[in-house]
């Protein structure tokens, strides 16, 4: 565990400008989405136990705390996807490194434009009761 903690602390204190935050968020969102994917494969595997067990366990996903987790998931997937596009732009068009700060800010705006309405729509049912 210690190297992981050291690595994360190292990452958090390294330079700290756009490129580093883009990298750190890409890594954290990637790990988060992978962990959710593992959970999701396990829950779908439980379909094999029949409707009784499967529908009984679905209350977990429908509970308010999990609805909030799902909003994090949507953010993680969206960020990872849009940041992946930024990475590929930089890979295949090296001159874009000259405007990489702007590229990252544009990316955040695009993520926000898609994420905010999606998050509101997803959280609304909790408040409606």
């Amino acid at each position, binding site marked *: 565990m210690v190297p992981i903690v050291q690595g994360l602390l190292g990452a958090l204190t390294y330079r700290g400008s756009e490129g580093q935050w883009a990298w750190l968020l890409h890594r954290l969102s990637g790990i988060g989405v992978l962990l959710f994917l593992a959970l999701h494969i396990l829950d779908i*595997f439980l*379909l094999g136990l029949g409707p009784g067990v499967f529908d009984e366990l679905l209350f977990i996903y429908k509970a308010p705390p999990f609805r909030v987790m799902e909003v994090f998931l949507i953010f993680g997937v969206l960020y990872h*996807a849009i940041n992946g596009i930024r990475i*590929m732009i930089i890979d295949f068009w090296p001159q874009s490194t000259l405007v990489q700060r702007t590229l990252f800010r544009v990316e955040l705006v695009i993520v926000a434009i898609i994420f905010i309405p999606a998050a509101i729509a997803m959280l609304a049912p909790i408040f409606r009761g």
Partner: protein
Amino acid sequence: MSASAERIARARATGNSFEVLSWFFMRLSGVILMFIVLFHLFYMHFVIGVDKINYALVVQRWENPLWRVFDLFLLFFALTHGLNGARYVIDDYVHGSGLNLLVKSIVYTLGFALLLMGTFIIFTFRITS
């Protein structure tokens, strides 16, 4: 220099094509995932809605073999892209060849088990015809 950058430098020096293929695979699977994951999330959250997801819905959805094919692609690309990402993360933080091998063995074994479980349920779930 991070472990992944070192690996790429070593790959260039020795002509190791695995890391080049890995780099290319991340871009290719990333673009594929951008379409199928975002469509999957949009469809399940906004076309169907989390409240309506249950056993009966999966039965109905998987009556169409095209959905099974879609989900198989989703499973395969998400898991392989995620596990290859996990490999980068492990190489960045877990040093020492013994520990590195141990952590990778555990993660790959779990990943392979998840791939088998997911594939199994997609191919065998209520095949009636």
